[in-house]
């Protein structure tokens, strides 16, 4: 059974899976979808109280958490929707125009 990491844009058709089936979970992690972004959130760590409200609201699981603390955005998957800024009770997230990481 071929695994997702062994398939890339040079893989011949004979080696791909029928219907594009993927035989493992979580492979979206390896796929850069952050390039679609037209606005970008900026994380101000000094203002963050780690209340964790932003984390479940993020539709793309693009806010990593480690040891009870949120880390900076996963810009490879953030689409810049701005929901995190909207739900953040503190001035810890601001949206800036453009897709580039500030």
């Amino acid at each position, binding site marked *: *059974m071929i695994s997702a990491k062994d398939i890339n*844009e040079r*893989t*011949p*058709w004979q080696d*791909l899976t*029928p*219907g*594009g*089936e*993927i*035989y*493992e*979970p979580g*492979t979206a992690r390896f796929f850069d979808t952050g390039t679609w972004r037209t606005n970008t959130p900026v994380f101000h760590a000094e203002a963050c109280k780690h209340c964790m409200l932003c984390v479940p609201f993020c539709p793309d699981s693009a806010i990593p958490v480690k040891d009870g603390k949120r880390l900076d955005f996963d810009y490879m998957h953030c689409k810049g929707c701005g929901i995190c800024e909207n739900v953040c009770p503190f001035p810890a997230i601001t949206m800036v125009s453009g897709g580039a990481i500030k």
Partner: protein
Amino acid sequence: MSKPLSGNEAVAYAMKQINPDVMGAFPITPSTEIPEYFAQYVADGEVNTEYVTVESEHSSMSVCIAAQAAGARSVSATSSCGLALMYELLYVAASCRLPITLACVNRALSGPININADHSDSMGARDSGWIQIYAENNQEAYDNFIMAMPIGEAPGVRLPVMTCMDGFITSHAVENIELLETDAVRKFIGEYNPDNYLLKKENPLAVGPYDVSPYYMEHKMLQAEAMKAAKVRILEVAAAFENISGRHYSLFEEYRMEDAQLALVLIGSSAGTAKAAVDKLREDGVKAGLIKIRIFRPFPGEELARALAGTRAVAVMDKSEGFSANGGPLFAETRSALYDLKERPYLINIVYGLGGRDIKVGDIEKVFDRLMDITVTGEIGPVYSHIGQRSKEDIV
């Protein structure tokens, strides 16, 4: 065991013998009786199928897709506008490589609205990636449905199969047919054991993911190769079926074609009428023959070209219009298939039988008369024409 059954009941009976895991059920004339009969089997406890009543054919096919992806053997039945409403899902089923089995009871596709037989519904879905098997009569409708799963589920194929029969003519007329024993049917089709399915907890599976352009064409190549592989599998399954039933099937049936100079190519129940005309002409010394296409997808192009190689004139008869302004779909395929022959027969297209318009032995004889004229004069006349309509002009 011999039993008088309508085409619909024969297919429902085949479904009962198969005992599929899931049926996506929605009624539409003339296929309605199939889910009706089957509902009775479910109510009587004769099958343990999950019978899912839905609000549309879009949903009945969606049920089949989800169930088949989960690892369940799924069936459905539909006609005409119902098949059209499934259109998007037909492509999803085929491209996800889910071997669903669908009984299509052929009926004209609107409009003006009409409930009678022609092939415009399934011909509209001919490029959806489904295997298409057409029946001439009730026996073939039953047999084809039983052969569908071993064809579609074969690992090298993995494609959905549409078994077609003519609405009312086949679906509602009652004929004595030979039924197999249920044990024999179950042994013939075996268990459905796909390598991967959603409910297999050992390895999580994603079905139908978004396909970006660097991958899409490769997946279409796989699908195209599967359709080519289906042709071999269809013949293997036919051979195995002959062993248990004594009934012979192939990609198409050749009727009195050994030395035929004039031939018809057509699909479905009209073959019975055409055989009667061929017999009559043979008695008069005319070397007439018939090819009844059984498998339309994959199209048996090379085999058909070989079968027609010795003929002098051929009429391809389409029971659907196609509106290409250049002939019906069966004509397009047949003419394309014959292109590689060194010596090609004269070829004409006759569109007939739309919306249940009757075709009679006399009509078929007229078509053979025209083929005869073509071989005598060398003048082909109109390549694409219609028969059976009222007209101010002489037709055929």
